[in-house]
């Protein structure tokens, strides 16, 4: 039992800007195992947190500590509190937390907001309910056991009732109870149901304030020219033409900060409006020192890492005896898969507003990780973190890009230099050319089959520049977390080996929605399909057999995977798609299944081809993510993931020549559009297991399912993405 304190009477209530007088609960509770705490320092600091404020008019302010970027987190997390509190959802006002360690870990990535916060939010709600019941019992002078709570009201067995708001004065002076009772899940009103997003109206009428929409009196607008080559620096620059652009106020140099989330540096143009800043930026004449990465040619690089996976690599996992299995094989299958860099390209470009005043600074930014932004800003200004306020706006998409607050540091650097509030806005070209790219990969897979078509040996050797290289320059092999999703495959294979090849980084490598599961999910699912063909079996039967008997896999991870759940989603997806039944002439199915972020997802896609162009008609996705919170959000995430997965399968490709990114905008870094969409059918498995990832796990299954369907239809196997390279879209 972790201590929860009623902090209504504490002075810092005011300092966080909440009206005093309400019932406010804080807690320093944590559901994290000690092991997870050790692994992630951020998690240890779950200090007094504010999540609930009930006002005497009955309005209920609930705090969302995670960032809203389409993940629906402002609705899901607060609905958990409201449900356990027996609160009336229509009385809830969601307030966004600033970046502060007292809220616990706020880093909104890794598909883990609900996984981490489901229990703590339940606790917050249950605690509040218990105190309100106690307050009512005291008012009526009756035993607590005769009182119950329901929809913002406490009821007495005699039929008396009292509204929550009327209990505030008494409740706020109560000690928090030492025992909490949770609701019986069968009584949930919001959890596991469908709720409309709390911000839907604001999104639809234009009043939602994204980072780019923040305005301050006397605020300036800035744009910045960065070196085309990653980590190149300014040799000299001529600002004459830029200063002549109407509206341009100043041109300054912002030096690179050589930290993972530091600015790339460059020349900033400060203006009275965004357009003038963009025009001024275009008018700059800059001579660059291109630096060490100027030789980066992604096409040559692909050849190099492919050579590296065609020879012995460093061993990441070695179980049984793969060589022996290969020697005794009835059949050997081997393939190489190549996937390019990707860019996040969220609809809202990176941007931030900063106002540095003396040793203090206030920021408004669309950030996935306000605490990391706070730390970077404090470091930059050499000021204590409590002098830095990070207000989290809505994010117009994040996908991992907005976990990296380099753009926040830029706004702060400029504001400090010009001594005024400023908004920096990246152009779309800046966003495409100066990102933290999803890795580029080459993967070599080899497997042996016995006479019955069982897989007896499996080798996966891959090379890809690691995310770790962004944090430790010089890292030139995949890191442990990039190996594990190749090593912990849920296949029942006795002899398995994973090796990694050398693969240094020449651009900033970052995490993009579903991260390493994109390459691994692709190669594993396409390869399994090839093996099914080699074994002369139906891909579904083959796959179920490959996953093998029901078992809980013992990995080093605190959360184990359960092969029965994996097979279940696959079977359900096949059933929903009518797998095995005849399709219209010229149509074919492909399937794929993947375990990531502790969730189980399978997709069956139905495609056809006309004039050698792929058309995706239907996507049948099934997810098992344990206990659900907002089913409509889960459905929406699966729908969106299908489109995200299709975009990368069809078009996603970032390339570099002479160290510079060749793409520039949605014109050459294309997205799926309305005329290309399939019908996406989603089934969510009912479960009482712990809640697991939703935002990302729907992505990795899509591309391999499409490639497998193309094979089924045409007999031609595509090993690389995107399909636009083959003229297929």
């Amino acid at each position, binding site marked *: 039992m972790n201590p929860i304190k009623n902090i209504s009477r504490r002075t810092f209530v005011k300092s966080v800007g909440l009206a005093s007088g309400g019932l406010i609960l804080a807690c320093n509770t944590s559901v994290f195992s000690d092991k997870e705490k050790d692994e992630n320092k951020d998690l240890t600091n779950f200090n007094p947190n504010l999540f609930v404020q009930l006002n005497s008019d009955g309005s209920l302010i609930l705090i969302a500590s995670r960032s*809203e970027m389409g993940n629906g987190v402002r609705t899901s997390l607060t609905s958990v509190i409201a449900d356990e509190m027996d609160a009336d959802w229509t009385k809830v006002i969601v307030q966004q937390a600033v970046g502060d360690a007292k809220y616990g870990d706020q880093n909104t990535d890794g598909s883990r907001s609900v996984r981490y916060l489901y229990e703590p939010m339940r606790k917050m709600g249950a605690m509040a309910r218990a105190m309100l019941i106690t307050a009512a019992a005291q008012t009526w002078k009756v035993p607590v056991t005769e009182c119950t709570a329901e929809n913002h009201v406490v009821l007495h067995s005699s039929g008396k009732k009292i509204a929550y708001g009327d209990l505030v004065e008494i409740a706020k002076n109560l000690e928090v109870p030492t025992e909490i009772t949770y609701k019986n899940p069968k009584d949930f009103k919001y959890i596991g149901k469908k709720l409309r997003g709390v911000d839907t109206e604001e999104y639809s009428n234009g009043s939602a304030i994204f980072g*780019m929409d923040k305005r301050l009196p006397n605020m300036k607008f800035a744009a910045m020219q960065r070196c085309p080559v990653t980590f190149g620096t300014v040799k000299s620059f001529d600002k004459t033409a830029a200063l002549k652009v109407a509206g341009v106020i100043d041109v300054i140099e912002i030096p690179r900060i050589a930290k993972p989330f530091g600015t790339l540096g460059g020349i900033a143009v400060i203006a009275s409006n965004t357009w003038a800043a963009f025009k001024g930026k275009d008018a700059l004449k800059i001579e660059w020192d291109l630096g060490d990465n100027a030789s980066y040619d992604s096409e040559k690089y692909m050849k190099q890492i492919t050579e590296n996976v065609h020879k012995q690599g460093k061993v990441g996992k070695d179980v049984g005896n793969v060589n022996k299995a290969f020697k005794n094989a009835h059949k050997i299958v081997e393939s190489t898969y190549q996937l390019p860099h990707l860019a996040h390209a969220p*609809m*809202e470009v990176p941007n931030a507003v900063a106002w540095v005043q003396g040793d203090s600074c206030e920021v408004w930014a669309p950030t996935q990780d306000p605490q990391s932004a706070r730390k970077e800003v404090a470091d930059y200004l050499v000021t204590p973190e409590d002098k830095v306020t990070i207000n989290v706006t809505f994010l117009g998409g994040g996908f991992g890009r907005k976990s990296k607050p380099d753009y926040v540091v830029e706004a702060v650097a400029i504001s400090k230099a010009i001594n005024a509030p400023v908004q920096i806005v990246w152009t779309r070209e800046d966003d495409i050319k100066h990102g933290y790219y999803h890795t580029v990969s080459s993967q070599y897979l080899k497997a042996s089959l016995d006479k019955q078509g069982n897989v007896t040996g499996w080798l996966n050797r891959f090379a890809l520049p690691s995310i770790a290289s962004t944090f430790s320059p010089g890292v030139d092999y995949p890191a442990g977390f990039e190996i594990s999703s190749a090593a912990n495959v849920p296949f029942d294979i006795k002899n398995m080996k994973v090796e990694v090849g050398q693969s240094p980084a020449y651009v900033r490598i970052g995490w993009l929605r579903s991260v390493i599961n994109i390459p691994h999910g692709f190669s594993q699912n396409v390869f399994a399909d090839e093996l099914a063909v080699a074994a002369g079996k139906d891909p579904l039967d083959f796959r179920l057999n490959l996953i093998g008997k029901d078992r809980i896999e013992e990995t080093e991870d605190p959360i184990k995977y359960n092969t029965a759940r994996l097979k279940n989603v696959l079977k359900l997806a096949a059933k929903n798609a009518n797998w095995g039944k005849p399709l219209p002439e010229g149509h074919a199915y492909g399937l794929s299944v993947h375990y990531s972020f502790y969730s189980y997802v399978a997709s069956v896609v139905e495609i056809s081809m006309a004039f050698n162009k792929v058309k995706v008609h239907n996507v049948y996705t099934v997810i098992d993510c344990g206990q659900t919170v907002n089913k409509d959000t889960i459905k929406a995430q699966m729908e969106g993931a299908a*489109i995200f997965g299709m975009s990368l399968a069809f078009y996603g490709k970032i390339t570099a020549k002479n160290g510079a990114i060749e793409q520039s905008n*949605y014109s050459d870094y294309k997205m799926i559009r*309305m005329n290309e969409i399939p019908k996406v059918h989603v089934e969510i498995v009912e479960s009482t297991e712990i809640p697991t990832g939703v935002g990302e796990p729907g992505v990795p299954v899509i591309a391999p399912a499409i490639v497998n369907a193309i094979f089924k239809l045409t007999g031609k196997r595509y090993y690389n993405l995107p399909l636009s390279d083959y003229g297929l879209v």
Partner: protein
Amino acid sequence: MITLQINGEKHKIDVAPEMPLLWAIRDIVELTGTKYGCGIGICGSCKVLLDNSPVQSCMIPVSAAEGKNVITIEGVSKNLQLLQDSWTALNVPQCGFCQPGQLIAATALLDKISDPTDEDINEAMIGNICRCGTYQRIKNAIHRTVELKKQG
């Protein structure tokens, strides 16, 4: 000085005539519902109605909007409000950033075709990217709006 008529209100602004309408709306008039997504006319985030036609405001110089009636996402137009209602009812937005542009494009569609087919919708909405992938719900919300209108 340029006079813009936006959502029925006149705004006198002092900007270069070639400034794109988008930035005049966002930075000068300070109506921030209209979004920047690409700046080259291919994402649709910046769409507004110019004398009832959908245009990419990032491509239109502010001078070309003078004397015309601009309606933004904050504005009023019968179909816009009906569509907004469907958007909310079907929980269309994910991050929400592209939705003002989507709604303007959908409004222009219903202004022109009262009962659009899926093909009509594809054609009208092809210029609007949604990186979150809410297309299916957008399509359903347009159909729902039409159905409700039919029922009166």
